[in-house]
Each structure stands twice: as C-alpha cells, then as structure tokens.
C-alpha cells in the first residue's frame, strides 16, 4: 500500500498573520518536529506580548467595517472558504498527519469535521436572526437583535490542530466579530494553511489574525481589554485555573473545554463484534490523544465467561493494530505528539503496575511498521483489574491506554462514572433500549454515546461537557456558538 507524499518539503518557517500581512516574529523560534519521522519540518515563533497586542489592535480596527458588512456578504466569504477547503482537502489533511502524527483517515476526518463547521456558519443570515413581539403592552413592541461584540481570542490545542479552532472561528466571523487565533506551537501548519485560504476567500485585513506562541500570547489575550471573549480547548488545570478564572476577573466571555476521563460501559447483551471495532477507535484512535477517547472500559455483570471472552477479543484485535507513520495508508495508529507526552504515558503505565493493576498488553514493547525512530511511538496498552481510585483509573492519561474495570450492575456502573470528576463523553454499548435510556438519563456527562465510542457532536450540535471537563455556559459549534459570539440587544419601542 502507498505511503502518501508529504506536502511540506524541507523546513518551513511559520509567521504570524496580522492585519492581512505575513509578519516575522521577534520572539524565540522553536523547532516543529514530525513525531513519526523525527525530522524537523518547521520553525515556529513564540510571539511576544507586543505582537499579540498588534494583532488585537488590527482586529479592533477591522471590527466596525466587518460588523457593517451584511450577514449575507459575510456568509459568501465562508462559502468561498468552504470551496477552497474542499479544493485543498488532501493537502490540509496530510499536513495534520505530518505535524501531529495521526493517521490519514483520522486527518481527513478532522478536515471534514472542520469544514462542516464552516458549512453550518454559512447559514448565518438565518442563524443570527432575532425575534419580535408586537404589543408587549398596548402600542408597544419589543425585539431582540443578536449583535456582534468585537474581538475574540481562540486558543487551540495540539490534538486537533485544524478542526478545533473551527469550532469557533467560522461562527465568530460570521456573526460580525473579528478574531485572533493562537494555534499550538507544536502543530502550527494547518492553521497557517487555513488562514492562507481565509485570506484568499476574501476576509478583509484584520478580520482573521493568527499569532503563534505559548503562554505569553495567552496572557496577552487574557489581559487585553479589547478582547471580549475567549474560547479555549486544553487541559483542566489551565482551563479552570487560568482561562476561566482570569476571563471572569476581566469580564470576558469564556468557553473552556477541558480534560476528560471517559467511561465506556459494556452490557452483556451488546453486539460484540461491532462493539469491539468501536472500542479500537474509541481507545486507540488519535493514539488516545483526544478528550473524547475511551479511557476506562467498564464491563457490567458477573458473567465471567462473557467478560473473559469479550476481553480476549479486545486484546486480540488491539494487539493487531498497525502502528507507524500516518501517511502510510495501512497504519491504524500513529505516534503520540512528542517524547514528553510519551514519557508521561510511560509514567502512568508504571504507576498502574505499581498500584496493582494487571498489565495484559504492554504497549512499551514496540512494534512499528516501517523504519522510523521510536522516540514518539507506543503500541496500545491494556490493564485489567483497575479500580476507579488508581491513578490510571481516575486521571487523564491522554494516550493509548485502556483500563478495564468491572461493575456488578448498571447502577453501580453509573455510580462509578459519576464519581469521576470529569464529565465529557461516556458511552454505553447495549441492545436494551431501557438500559440505554437509564444510562443516558442518569450519567453525568456532557456528551453521551449509545453504541457510539467517540461521542463527538456534529457541527450543528453543541460540543458539550460537564463537571471538570467544561467551564462556561454556552458551548462551541452550531446555535450555541452563535449565541456565544453575539450580545442580545433588546429594543422596546413606543410611538406617541
């Protein structure tokens, strides 16, 4: 099978995009390394506070004109962006595989989901319509106008470098706001490509800005009085203690989508072959680096024969997962993003062993397809006899590790799920409608799957989250994003 051609040759320099211009940064430059090949593929700046301020200034200046641009004209820019993204679909996808490591099917899936958000935002002329009541009192009418607010900051994570900023950006600009995006400095290239296409699509200078970097850029956004709101996707400590807290202090709107520890509940009546295929994607897709990955496999019931048979099949299929460079079409799991993340996962595996869990598939024993350095690679790991209070059973590992637990019955399973501080994406696999409804009703999770292993809402539904997985009120995507990016201006009218 073919190894697809790399779209980035040599070492590419990343620049900031401010006020319609590509600008060199005065900040420190860091290497961007392809995690599969170990080769340096680019240089990314860690921009300065002055540079983020310049971007916010440009966005602020662009706001009044962009706000006056009609929703229909704004949506035409998005239609053109959608068309350009389709034309560049394959290049955008392969860039993600190069910068992040995910395999090509996953990258194409990410591209498609990103484009779907652009498509939904194209409907902004109707999505942002207000509403009107005649005669709220005799001769008095009242209506609401969703009004754009100004400059928004969008902070992207490393695990979905292309798609996640698109949970916010299309809605923000469609509603008449201007934006500054900060991609993860580990994976800046797909956002570079995106803004290049946004410029070609006709967004005026200053409407769509990108500033690369790290904490300095984030702090610059949080401090800046002209940033009216921030969307963030990343870890719970940063989301809760930095982003949510400081947005509160400075009066900014905020969506902070954070970490997770997702439970996949297996009922004895599930469709075993289909469930096992779903487990592979859920636990090991994106090398486990997503906030909707399955983390704990919770098998319900005291039927030891079912448990053993199910787990044997899971182990068998998991052990056959082909690990390697994601541009090889045969590969089912790529590397993790970098050696520090791998080291962190290895620490969790060691802690699982120390705490007494049974290691039944050891992903530290590497089996890589192709001749690549093992720096960022891991094979899938499975632990049995995990308890919910072990570190591997309670904390987010963000890697290809499955922790298997058992529960006596569905009530106990739900109790275990709900005792975990996170509430992002729990799922049940069953053929019983009664059990499925009972689970959906009682589980404290923002996204709930019924025979779905990765509970990722499509673009016209909010990407939800509860407890330590989400801080804010409204969510990204769809109608909730439109509400987040607009203020409700209410008009009450009487004529004498």
């Amino acid at each position, binding site marked *: *099978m*073919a190894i697809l051609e790399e779209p980035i040759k040599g070492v590419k320099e990343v620049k900031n995009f401010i006020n319609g211009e590509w600008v060199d940064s005065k900040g420190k430059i860091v290497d961007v390394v392809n995690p599969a090949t170990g080769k340096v593929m680019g240089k990314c700046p860690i921009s300065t506070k002055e540079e983020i301020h310049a971007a916010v200034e440009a966005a602020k200046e662009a706001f009044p004109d962009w706000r006056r641009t009609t929703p229909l004209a704004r949506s035409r820019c998005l239609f053109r962006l959608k068309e350009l993204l389709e034309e560049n*679909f394959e290049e955008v996808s392969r860039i993600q595989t190069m910068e992040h490591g*995910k*395999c*090509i*099917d*996953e990258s*194409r*899936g*990410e591209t*498609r*989901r990103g484009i779907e958000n652009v498509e939904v935002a194209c409907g902004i002329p109707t999505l942002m319509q207000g509403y009107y009541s005649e005669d709220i009192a005799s001769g008095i009418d009242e209506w609401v106008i969703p009004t754009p607010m100004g400059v928004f900051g969008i902070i992207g994570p490393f695990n979905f470098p292309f798609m996640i900023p698109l949970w916010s950006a299309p809605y923000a600009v469609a509603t008449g706001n201007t934006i500054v995006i900060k991609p993860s400095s580990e994976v800046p290239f797909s956002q570079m490509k995106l803004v290049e296409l946004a410029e070609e699509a006709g967004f005026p200078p200053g409407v769509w800005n990108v500033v690369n970097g790290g904490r300095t850029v984030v702090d610059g956004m949080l401090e800046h009085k002209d940033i009216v709101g921030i969307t963030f996707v990343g870890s719970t400590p940063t989301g809760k203690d930095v982003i949510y807290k400081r947005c509160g202090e400075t009066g900014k709107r905020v969506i902070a989508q954070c970490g997770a520890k997702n439970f996949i509940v297996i009922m004895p009546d599930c469709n075993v072959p*289909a469930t096992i*295929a*779903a487990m*592979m*994607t859920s636990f090991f*897709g*994106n090398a486990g680096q*997503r906030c*909707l990955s399955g983390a704990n496999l919770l098998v319900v019931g005291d039927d030891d024969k079912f448990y053993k048979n199910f787990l044997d099949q899971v182990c068998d*299929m998991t052990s056959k997962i*082909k690990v390697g460079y994601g541009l090889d*079409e*045969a*590969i*089912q*799991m790529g590397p993790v993003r970098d050696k520090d993340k791998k080291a962190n996962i290895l620490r969790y595996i060691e802690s699982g062993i120390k705490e007494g869990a049974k290691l039944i598939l050891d992903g530290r024993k590497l089996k890589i397809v192709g001749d690549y350095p093992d720096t960022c690679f891991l094979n899938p790991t499975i632990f049995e006899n995990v308890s919910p209070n072990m570190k591997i059973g309670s904390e987010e590992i963000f890697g290809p590790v499955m922790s298997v637990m058992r529960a006596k019955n569905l009530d106990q399973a739900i109790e275990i799920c709900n005792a975990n501080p996170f509430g992002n994406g729990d799922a049940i696999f069953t053929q019983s409608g009664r059990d499925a409804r009972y689970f959906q009703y009682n589980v404290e999770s923002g996204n709930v799957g019924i025979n*779905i*292993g*990765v*509970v*990722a809402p499509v673009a016209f539904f909010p990407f939800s989250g509860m407890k330590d997985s989400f801080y804010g009120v409204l969510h990204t995507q769809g109608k909730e994003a439109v509400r987040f990016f607009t203020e409700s201006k209410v008009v009450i009218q009487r004529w004498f």
Partner: protein
Amino acid sequence: MEINTCSGAISLSRELENESAKFYQELSKRFEKDQELFLAFAKENEKYIKQIERAYYGVITDALEGCFAFDLNPEDYQFKNALPKDISYPDAVAEALNMEETMLRFCQTAAEQSKHLMADVPRSFTMVAKKRSERLSKLKSLLER
C-alpha cells in the same frame, strides 16, 4: 498485507477500477465490433471511482471506525489484465467475466465489512456491485450471440 483502513480500501478500489478500465480499453482495440461497449465500461469505471471517493471524503470522520472498517486481502482480488496476443473473442470475454466476478466480490465484501461503520461508503460499494452484476449479464449475452 491485509487492508483495515478506509483509506487503504479506497485506494485498492481505485487501483482495481483503473486496472479494469485498462483491460477494457485494450479489449476495445482488439475487438472493434464491440468497441463502443468496452469503452463505455472503461468510462463507467472512472465514474465508480469518483462515486466511491465522493462518499468517502463526504463521510470520513475521526469519530467512526475509519481505521478499523475493513479486513481485505488485496491478493484475493487480483485478476489478469493483459490479454494474450492471439486470444479469441470468446476467451477474451471469458477473461472479462472473470475480472467482473472478482470486482463484484470485492465490492460486495467491502460493503459488507463496512456496513455498520462507514455510513455512505458501503452504500456506494453496494451500488457499484449492482452495476457490476448488470455488466456480467451484458458480457454473458455477448457470448450467446
């Protein structure tokens, strides 16, 4: 190596359709009496590639089982695409029938394996399989003339 990923299955499908199209182009040059039909088959193959790729690129999502949707061995779907120099018309059509049976089996297997996992992709394979069944009947009728 067996193919498990959707990307791999789509590439295999494209490869088989292209090989099959080349075979029909060659057939059309050798047997001019049915040139139009064989060239139409070759052209249809291009359409099938587009239909399957369009379905794939339209529904591919990291949330479903794209990397685990198939279990195909490419060796099970090999066929002869070179015609011997002095092959007779009935033998050439028989080769075409063999090839179509292989392609039909490929499409049916791909559709069956991915039916719960890949949304529109299995439907496209099923549609192409149906067209291939019709093509088999047409080829058989050539031998009965």
